[in-house]
């Protein structure tokens, strides 16, 4: 299977130039998209669909920092098995519980939910910086791995806040 970074001509780094990724994605899709092969024989249409599917999956993975980090770790032999590997620092577990409670308590308060969202956003940015350092500079894969798990949790929490906000809106 084609490796994602090289598909888009990017170096295999956590830190990437997102606009370069987007431009490369468009270039690739312009070549492989099934719409370019709609009047071609069935075999070519099928191959085009496979390439376009790959390009979409590669783009989706590299665009999201958490998915990109997971992919990099996977390439270095570390599977992010979230179901089984839940080891996280005690401090983070405590903070997780606090956040969860805060979100539950704020379920009817759009203002408070938005404030929490911003707070998470801030922490998220700090963690992403740490993750970049762990992956690109220090090569500290176990640290990176824990950060990815934390960020996945944060994503889930932000999604819950989003859903709560959606319920309030309707």
């Amino acid at each position, binding site marked *: 299977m084609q490796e994602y970074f090289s598909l888009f*001509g990017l170096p295999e780094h956590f830190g990437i130039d997102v606009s370069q990724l987007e431009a490369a994605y*468009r270039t690739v899709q312009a070549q492989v998209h*099934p*719409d370019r092969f709609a*009047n071609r024989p069935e075999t*070519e249409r*099928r*191959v085009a669909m496979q390439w376009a599917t790959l390009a979409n*999956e590669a783009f989706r993975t590299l665009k999201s920092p958490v998915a990109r980090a997971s992919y990099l770790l996977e390439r270095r032999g570390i599977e992010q098995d979230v179901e089984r590997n839940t080891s996280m620092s005690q401090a983070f577990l405590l903070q997780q519980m606090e956040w969860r409670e805060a979100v539950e308590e704020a379920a009817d308060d759009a203002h408070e939910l938005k404030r929490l969202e911003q707070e998470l956003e801030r922490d998220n940015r700090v963690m992403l910086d740490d993750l970049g350092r762990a992956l690109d500079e220090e090569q500290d894969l176990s640290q990176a791995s824990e950060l990815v798990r934390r960020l996945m949790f944060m994503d889930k929490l932000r999604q819950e806040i*989003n859903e709560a906000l959606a319920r309030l809106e309707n």
Partner: protein
Amino acid sequence: MALLQISEPGEAPDPHEQRLAIGIDLGTTNSLVATVRHSIPECLPGDACGILLPSVVRYKKDATPVVGSSALAAQAMDPRNTIASVKRLMGRSLADADAGMRARYDLVDTGGMVRINTVAGPRSPVEVSSEILKTLRERAEGSLGGDLVGAVITVPAYFDDAQRQATKDAARLAGLNVLRLLNEPTAAAIAYGLDEGAEGIYAVYDLGGGTFDFSVLRLSRGVFEVMATSGDSALGGDDFDETLADWLNAKAGAGVDLDCSKSRALLVEARRVKEALTDAAEVIARVPVAADGVKGVRVTASAFRDMTHELVERSLGPVRKALRDAGLKVEEIQAVVLVGGATRMPHVRDAVARHFGRKPFTDIDPDKVVAIGAAIQANVLAGNRRPGEDWLLLDVIPLSLGLEMMGGLTEKVIPRNSTIPVAKAQDFTTFKDGQTAMMIHVVQGERELVQDCRSLARLELRGIPPMPAGGARIRVTFQVDADGLLSVSAREQTTGVEANVVVKPSYGLSDDEITSMLQAGFEHASADMQARALREHQVDAERLIEATGQALAEDADMLSAEELASIEGCIAQLHRLAQGTDHLAIKAGTDELSAKTADFAAKRMDKAIRLALTGSRVDKLSI
């Protein structure tokens, strides 16, 4: 013999060899067909009645069904056999059908997709839609004077897999080669975007006769990228008609139930009044009453607005959802485009303008814009891309695809708003020793519980090699193609054995049903259909010969001498067959050549794509 014609894939070989392709807007109320002639998209008119074909089919005993305005005119006279708004029943069961449709027609529960009892026998919504498509196909062939390469058919963006598949099946029954199913709001965006050369983030608010779609797109350097889509596949202009009809009946007849024919006449009158209120402050409705005759009822624009306020509000929920999914605020939307006849209602326009804080675009006729966008895409897909015409469309799947897990819970496999084509592989294992089959239930929707989602299909995997419990590792791949349609394949990982996937669509037609419907068509106009089949297979054969010849000219060195000789022999044989009239032999010859060149074609594609990707990167580096 134009065997060695060399041109890039997707590029027109020669201006006078324009391939004929059409775009069809298969609407709830009206349908249209459009094409691109001399680089200009246009809607094709019918005999006498302009470009709109009312999506109404009237069935008669032992006679060809009547489609369009004469069927529309017969509605009140023959309500049971005159089917309008059939789009609302596509890929739907009896239980899904709304009260209005159930009251108007004799619907039959089949467990799967509903059937409609008519004087000509039970008809599936797919067959009814295919009559509309057939009429449009004939209109296009008559007007363009030649065989069509294919058609782009639009569907509501919010249509689920069953509704999309039903539409594609209807096209197949109508003898159309579907180049692509295109989402209606995306079609509108193409028509607008290419017209205005626009860049930025656009929203399309598409309220049709029976469906509502809302899509957010980013237009940038020739790429139309759908960021999010949402909607309500059971909200449209029809609902405004029904609300008004109920109100009129309550006013005029004290709510007494009308017979079938009168209640249809009432609905027709309600629609007339609704349309008249677009320009008038008040209209006198002539309401049929239970006793003979009609009663005049005054309807003001403000009364109409008040009684349908809730419907307009309902459309704003999906608007908010799509913006949230796209991570956008209202202010970030550069412009809002209105599509669909129902957006002519002033209070709908006002609500959209209020929500977005700006006046929506209505420059292109909201009735035509979808068909025009479809025609533009059909033209490009058929291979008539002009040099420099270099745009690309990236669309999404509207609803999440999931699987039924233990305890009736849904596990999402492909989330909504994923760019298509998209695939996900999921591993399953056996739980019994020697187990050789397993069932997988695929659903579509956002809810946690399977019962709250839409059942798409039950897949039975057969031919799993017998192993101890938990020993088999079956990787099931769910592939959604560029039409938004799902296909499934399965392979046991340790042995590499391909499992046989038997799909039982929950609300679709099986292949057998489609075949028998096609055959029923053959019986009616046997000679005609035979001639069509022959022509279609000849065209397919010629196209494959042409493509293969082109491939050999470029890459014959990728083949061994034996492979080359075998392919060339196969071409020569197919060429001979294509001169004859045995359409089954031509089909078999085409299949043979196709199979024989499959590996070659795949290798060539891989090579071309890899080359193009390296090439583009080199270009970038040299800048």
